[in-house]
């Protein structure tokens, strides 16, 4: 072992520059993986925090059915009396419209001096407010207070920081997850603070200082605004920390206080239960016992059922992380393999000498594995701390916006570290084999041996096999779950390995085709370039393969991303506008119709139900929306396309009950069409079956609902697509009938004289007293989603470019190795009369062969990868997308690859041109 170790360190030290480049390849891969792991870990921790905020340490809960509904509070007494119940903490939830008069010091317009006078700006918001029994609630979860105390009296309220901020500045952003819009109310009002401060201040700096303290704080008050009632004051007694990842603004009151404020009485929204562990009663047993005794308006769930969606999501993330880890380090491993293999070829004589003096095959093989391990360890030691530091710095910088602190999961960092070492060892495996195969005699003879056609044929067959395995998964398998697992475990690695091997025949083909032109353009002797490639096809081929991975990633990302935008989001024909709220009363729709530019409205109720139609069994828990509406107005307003069935026949069956119309995605994913059956489960786990009476294109309701995301459950479940049924079924089977969305049509600007933004502002002002959380036009929603997707594409493209940069180091290493191995040959060429510039051009021409091969392979691999992704999307999520190559992204990728390859080769090419013939000839 000592000998193998010494040989390993000696060989790495012998080629320090190249060893350093290989270390950097692994370091950059490790940096990327560790940075992503910190980001994912932080997000997961934030989601976990969110789940904890929802569930606390409750073992089970009793929940009202349907948004905005309550159940009789007498149930609380009954539950407390049940055996095994240690804590039963009640909660009441409602939406309240609150107003705050913010003190603002402003300079009078046109004034000559700097005096800023005290004025007031009134902000109004509809926020979710929870009534809690503070003492009981503290046993389940802790509301973290940033200042002040919990509410004790009926006219006291605690605001979370998000709510406090929204009450001091206008927020009408139509953004993903942006709910709780706050409006600057028109007209005058009074400052909601007993001692706001001086009536005027002499300087802008002093005004800024005072304005910075204008957000609501303990001892301020807010006004409760109710439609048809006089405004009432609520004293702010505390400011609470918002849950991780922000979300909706929240307020907290006593239960009695909220009952008075929301004009509710005798009802509860939830009871959180902590069971006595010594009672022997499990949460499931408790739920089974209590369920028959619950009224229609309530259901019981274990906390595990609630968090299982999050746990499954975390599992899926873990799988994604491991897969990403594997792919990144596999790519790095291939680069290491090619680099070390070239080193073996160069050191044939040295290796032969070692065999002559008694080195065993095993010792030479182990020395290569040691070399790979050293590269992996060094790469890991450099890359991982940098990756972690970079991610922590970025997350800390954006902590306020993300409302998530950086979290380093050391087990994932350890996995990344192992991955780096794995890359080195995998990369060293082929060179180890090659070194062990060195026969002393053949190596001492040092004859140039051409690559055997049989070996190239085997490599080509292996490459094609990998490519075909990836494709065959979709033709041979039909079950979506099998397809997913086969794709992840076999298809993707086969695709990568297959294309890596295909680099060899591809380089030879490209050399044959492109060399004549390149030789003319770069004034090289005929056949020199093509023979050079033919003599060492593996070096050229694997170098090209190393370069192609980043381009393939970019092509796949853009192909799929563009397809998602073009064939999914862009195809959705949104109505003119949506208003999202929490259990909006029917009066809200009537109020909306009063606006002169509104031409039509439709109130919509949505309720998430569990389905197995999408996702991967064992990995995801997916819900879909059961949507109910007034059919007359809905079908009049919506521009949906009937894939199967027609409106008339479908409406008859909907009215009769027990029937649904499904979105097209159900048809794509599960071939669910007319006459088929839609099966779903409600929150209590009860199964419901519906006959499918139509298949329609998506009208975007679930997209809009997810866009505004009124639910706190986004951390624990995925909700996709929709089925459309009757109101009676929604109420009878799921106990839900509250209005969560109102879609509306507006007159065009040419008729109304109002811009989109102006119309939306009026809608918001009109509906805010009715529990509106946000409103936006269909165009705004679509544009925002498209913008978000484009940003995501750009960010993921950065990852692809980073991957190309990693490969660039590998290419540089291989170019240096290739030049070094042929120094004597170059010396002979110079001795025969070749100019130094010709050698430089030859190296650059070889780099161009590598570029072209990498571009062709990378594009093909990217498109094939995108094809796989699109098929997988169709199978799992039912989203039907077309494969269309993104020409601009491909062209940009090609340019980048060319730039990287030429940049990697240029320093070596120039250095070679500077060497004298004697120096080159003495290399033998």
């Amino acid at each position, binding site marked *: *072992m*000592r*000998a193998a170790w*010494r040989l390993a360190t*000696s*060989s790495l*030290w*012998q080629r320090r520059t190249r060893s350093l480049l290989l270390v950097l390849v692994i370091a950059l891969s490790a940096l990327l993986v560790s940075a992503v792991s910190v980001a994912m870990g932080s997000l997961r921790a934030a989601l976990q925090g969110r789940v904890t905020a929802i569930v606390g340490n409750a073992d089970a809960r009793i929940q009202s059915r349907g948004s905005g509904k309550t159940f009789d509070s007498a149930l609380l007494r009954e539950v407390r009396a049940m055996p095994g119940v240690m804590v039963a903490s009640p909660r009441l939830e409602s939406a309240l419209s609150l107003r705050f008069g913010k003190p603002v010091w402003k300079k009078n317009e046109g004034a000559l001096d700097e005096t800023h006078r005290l004025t007031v700006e009134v902000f109004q918001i509809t926020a979710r407010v929870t009534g809690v029994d503070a003492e009981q609630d503290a046993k389940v979860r802790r509301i973290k207070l940033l200042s002040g105390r919990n509410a004790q009296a009926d006219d006291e309220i605690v605001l979370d920081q998000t709510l406090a901020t929204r009450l001091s500045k206008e927020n009408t952003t139509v953004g993903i997850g942006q709910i709780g819009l706050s409006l600057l109310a028109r007209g005058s009002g009074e400052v909601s603070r007993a001692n706001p401060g001086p009536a005027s201040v002499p300087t802008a700096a002093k005004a800024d200082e005072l304005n910075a303290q204008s957000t609501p704080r303990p001892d301020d008050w807010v006004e409760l605004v109710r439609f048809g009632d006089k405004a009432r004051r609520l004293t702010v007694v505390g400011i609470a920390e918002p849950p991780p990842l922000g979300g909706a603004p929240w307020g907290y009151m006593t239960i009695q206080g909220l009952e008075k404020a929301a004009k509710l009485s005798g009802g509860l929204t939830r009871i959180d239960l902590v069971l006595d562990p010594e009672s022997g009663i499990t949460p499931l047993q408790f739920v089974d016992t209590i369920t028959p005794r619950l009224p229609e308006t309530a259901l019981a769930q274990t906390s595990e059922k609630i968090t299982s969606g999050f746990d499954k999501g975390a599992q899926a993330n873990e799988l994604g992380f491991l897969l990403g880890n594997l792919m990144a380090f596999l790519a790095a491993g291939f680069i290491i393999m090619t680099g070390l293999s070239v080193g073996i070829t160069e050191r044939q*004589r*040295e290796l032969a*000498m*070692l*065999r*002559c*003096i*008694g*080195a*065993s*095959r095993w*010792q030479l093989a182990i020395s290569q594995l040691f070399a790979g391990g050293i590269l992996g360890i060094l790469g890991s030691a450099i890359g991982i701390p940098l990756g972690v530091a970079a991610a922590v710095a970025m997350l800390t910088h954006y902590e306020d916006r993300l409302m998530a602190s950086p979290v380093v999961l050391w087990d994932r960092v350890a996995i990344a570290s192992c991955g780096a070492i794995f890359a080195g060892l995998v990369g060293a495996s082929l060179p180890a084999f090659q070194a062990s195969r060195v026969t*002393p*005699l053949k190596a*001492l003879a040092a004859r140039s041996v051409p690559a055997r056609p049989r070996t190239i044929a085997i490599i080509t067959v292996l490459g094609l096999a990998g490519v075909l395995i990836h494709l065959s998964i979709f033709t041979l398998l039909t079950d979506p779950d099998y397809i997913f697992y086969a794709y992840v475990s076999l298809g993707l690695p086969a695709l990568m390995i297959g294309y890596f091997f295909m680099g060899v025949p591809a380089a030879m083909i490209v050399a044959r085709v492109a060399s004549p032109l390149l030789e003319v353009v770069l004034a090289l002797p005929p056949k020199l370039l093509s023979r050079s490639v033919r003599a060492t096809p593996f070096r050229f081929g694997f170098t090209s393969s190393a370069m192609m991975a980043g381009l393939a990633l970019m092509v796949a990302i853009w192909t799929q991303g563009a397809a998602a935008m073009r064939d999914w989001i862009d195809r959705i024909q949104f109505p003119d506008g949506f208003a999202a709220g929490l259990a909006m009363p029917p009066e809200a729709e009537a109020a909306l119709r009063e606006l002169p530019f509104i031409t039509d409205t439709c109130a919509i109720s949505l309720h998430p139900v569990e389905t197995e139609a999408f996702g991967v069994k064992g990995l995801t828990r997916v819900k879909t929306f059961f949507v109910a509406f007034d059919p007359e107005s809905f079908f009049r307003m919506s521009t949906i396309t009937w894939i199967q069935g027609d409106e008339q026949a479908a409406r008859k069956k909907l009215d009769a009950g027990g029937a649904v119309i499904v979105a097209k995605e159900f048809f794509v994913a599960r071939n669910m069409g007319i006459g088929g059956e839609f099966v779903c489960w409600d929150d209590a786990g009860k199964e419901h079956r519906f006959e499918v009476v139509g298949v329609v294109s998506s009208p975007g309701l679930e997209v809009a609902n997810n866009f505004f995301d009124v639910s706190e459950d986004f951390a624990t479940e995925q909700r996709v697509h929709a089925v459309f049924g009757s109101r009676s079924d929604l109420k009878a089977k799921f106990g839900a009938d509250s209005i969560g969305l109102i879609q509306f049509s507006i007159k065009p600007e040419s008729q109304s004289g109002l811009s989109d933004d102006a119309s939306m502002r009026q809608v918001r002002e009109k509906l805010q007293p009715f529990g509106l959380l946000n409103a936006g036009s269909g165009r705004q929603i679509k544009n925002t989603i498209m913008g978000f997707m484009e940003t995501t594409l750009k960010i993921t493209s950065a990852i692809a470019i980073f991957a190309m940069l990693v490969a660039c180091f590998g290419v540089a290493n291989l170019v240096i190795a290739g030049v070094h191995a042929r120094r004597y040959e170059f010396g002979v060429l110079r001795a025969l009369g070749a100019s130094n510039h010709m050698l430089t051009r030859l190296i650059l021409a070889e780099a161009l062969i590598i570029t072209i091969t990498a571009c062709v392979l990378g594009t093909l691999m990217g498109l094939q990868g995108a094809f796989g992704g699109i098929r997988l999307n169709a199978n799992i999520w039912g989203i039907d997308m077309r494969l269309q190559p993104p020409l601009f992204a491909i062209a940009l990728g090609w340019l980048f690859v060319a730039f990287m390859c030429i940049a990697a080769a240029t320093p070596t090419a120039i250095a070679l041109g500077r060497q004298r013939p004697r120096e080159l000839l003495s290399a033998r």
Partner: protein
Amino acid sequence: MLLLSCSNLHKAYPLANRSVPALRGVDLCIEKPGFYAIMGASGSGKSTLLHLLATLDRPDQGTITLASKDGPRSLHNLSEREATIFRRKQIGIVFQQFNLIPTLTAQENVELPGLLDGDDPTKLRARSSALMEQLGIAQRATHRPDALSGGEQQRVAIARALLYSPPLLLADEPTGNLDSASSAKLWALLAEIAREQNLLVLMVTHEPAAAAFCSRVFVLQDGRMKATIETEGLDAGGVATRYQQLVATTN
């Protein structure tokens, strides 16, 4: 008892679509230690013969027996593993190209066989120091090969080959990369080593001047043992004349 005995050695190599015979029934017998040369024109089979003696290759036919430290040993049918281990301590090989590892010091290069054998570092160091002292390169112990002259590098290679005092030292054109003065010194050194350490040193060469330092010259021609030249009383010119006569007779 014969020190080294080769009988009816045959070896052919595949080349393109045919088989090229390199040795066609070579017999070689050496009874006592000393400095011997194998001479012949290019393609006569001398390197092939050396490779077979070094257990780097196996004959197609024939036998090779060496009186090793552990008794007589057949070299023609060793397994690869046996041959590898045998070469560590029983055969020393000196190459034309020196073949030193450039990132190891001169002393570390000398110790390489011991490193491969997992020998005790302290003992190894002592042995290599003594050898380097003996060969007059002790003062270059810490230098890397690129800081040594050609002659010094070849001495390092010889020291490496002598680390375990093998009964057989094979040198394949060891002065091919040296100037004439350095070459002469090296041949004298090899003769001295053979004499003082009682080793069998067998050198492949095409230079008659080298052969003059040897006690016997084996002449190969067309894969066969043509003749043996006893060099006692002959100088380089004499050996060259005798060799030319032998070659001319054939032609």
